[in-house]
């Protein structure tokens, strides 16, 4: 008796992924994102001057050949500041995303796999989630002083519970799958069980959630800096630029709006890519995220 291998029974998941990732809006978003990353990396080479150099004689100038986006209240070149601002904002976003995903995975696996710790871990997560994210971040920065590091940590912590919930729910679902039970019956020890069979299933949802954290972190940092409780003013983050432009808004709205535009476009692109990834990888995830 020989079994013949038949054609694949279900359309390949990769075909669907490819199709979603090459649709027009996604390509545009990826391009914008690519540009943002390039700006961040190549800021010094983009015709920028020193973002913190003060030119008292050039205060509050409009768009001109010398200053492509005008100058701010200290005579600093807005264009340079916005370009360098990309570095900060993207860095904060990336840092928060990576940290929350890593910690969330670790804690989520513990909660999902070790039944006895589940209750306690989830109550703590619920507690953290009960405090509105930005308030928690603000409080953390307040008690530990404002620096790039503390801001990233402060933004990361409120994002962790949602990642934990996601990972935990994946683990709980997978734990009941017959192939995991088969592995247990075959004598597979717990660490191998986790790494071989369970954790790989978390990769896709984590990637999706990571992009959303990236976007959310950038927005949170901007909001905090805008309120004056985020990054110290020496960092030309987009949020700080906008904070400084507040008073002069009626005079020179561009001080706020240029940085705002860049931020909005970047966050938008990240969200679009995240959505596309989620739709491509597993339509069922849409409910959980």
């Amino acid at each position, binding site marked *: 008796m020989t079994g013949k291998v038949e054609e694949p029974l279900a359309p390949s998941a990769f075909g669907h992924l490819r199709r979603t990732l090459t649709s027009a809006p996604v390509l545009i978003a990826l391009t914008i994102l690519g540009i943002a990353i390039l700006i961040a990396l190549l800021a010094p080479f983009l015709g920028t001057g020193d973002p913190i150099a003060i030119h008292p004689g050039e205060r509050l100038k409009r768009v001109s050949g010398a200053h492509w986006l005008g100058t701010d209240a200290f005579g600093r070149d807005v264009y340079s500041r916005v370009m360098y601002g990309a570095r900060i904002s993207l860095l904060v976003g990336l840092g928060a995303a990576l940290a929350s995903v890593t910690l969330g995975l670790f804690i989520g696996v513990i909660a999902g796999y070790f039944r006895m710790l589940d209750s306690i871990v989830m109550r703590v997560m*619920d507690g953290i989630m009960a405090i509105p994210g930005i308030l928690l971040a603000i409080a953390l920065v307040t*008690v530990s002083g404002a620096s790039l590091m503390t801001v990233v940590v402060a933004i990361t912590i409120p994002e962790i519970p949602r990642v934990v919930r996601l990972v935990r729910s994946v683990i709980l679902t997978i734990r009941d799958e017959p192939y995991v039970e088969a592995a247990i019956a075959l004598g597979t020890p717990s660490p191998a069980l986790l790494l071989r069979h369970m954790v790989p299933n978390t990769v896709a949802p984590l990637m999706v959630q990571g992009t959303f954290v990236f976007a959310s972190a950038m927005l949170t940092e901007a909001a905090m800096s805008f309120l*004056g409780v985020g990054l110290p003013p020496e960092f030309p983050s987009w949020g700080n630029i906008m904070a400084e432009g507040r008073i002069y808004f009626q005079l020179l709205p561009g001080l706020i709006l240029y940085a705002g535009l860049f931020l909005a476009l970047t*966050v938008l692109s990240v969200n679009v890519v995240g959505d596309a990834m989620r739709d491509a990888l597993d339509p069922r995830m849409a409910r959980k995220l």
Partner: protein
Amino acid sequence: MTTVPVVGTVALVVFAILRLTPGDPAAIIAGDSATTEQLEQIRVHLGLDKPMHVQFFLWLLQILRGDLGVSLISGVPVSGMILDRMGPTLALSTTIILFSVIVAIPLGVIAAWRQGTVLDRSVTAFSVLGFSVPVFVNGYLLILLFSISLGWLPVQGYKPLTDGFLPFFVRLILPTLALSTAYIALIARITRTSILEVMGEDYIRTARAKGLKENAVLLRHALRNAAVPIVTIIGVGIAHLIGGVVVTESVFNLPGLGRLVVEAVLARDYPVIQGLILLFSFVNILINLLVDVIYTVIDPRIRY
């Protein structure tokens, strides 16, 4: 019933954060010229000489009695400050929630109803946009358009209801619009997804097999079953909303609790910060409890 440990955790977290503040609270109160005995006295008075867990329980009891301490700056009781500044925040929040829900749900239903069409794609696009543009950028754009260019609406400021409905209302329009976009985006999108999911269920097929018209199928069978995730997101979104209110009050200069948070943080007024965080967290928890209660009304399978 799991709320109690959650509340406990929140209290613990807040307490921990505030006790982690660098610097000696006694020194802050006493000032630079205090002697060591005076500092000791103040410490005893504040209960700082007792072990940590005792401090925590004393503090907890204090909170439960409604005593949130006094402001380090003004000496005014925190609970009093909260009551004073509650008005604008309450007005803004209520307006936003009502407006968002009324706009978002029909939007989501229509998008699901006309899935794949231009209408659906526009709603989806708007959702992603609404969620991505920062609240304050939104706010300033609106101000630029409606206040500065068109002059239709005042730029900033707040008038309480007692001053008359119209001035009160007019000043709430722009802040509401600024923050609602994010909330609407969230709700509309979940509404759409939830309805689409429900439309694939078996009992929808049964309804069609009975000879029902499509809109009857949607409204009578799908909607109520789709409600649970929608109600959930409204509850979960409250945390987001609170954060947004803090920023919006800053942009539009509304003298509410959100602005108070910022002021307190800049002034390092710890009791006020602590009180506000506790308040907002409890409101969040309360609203989510309400959501749980609403579940039991919507879905007869859920009974606690």
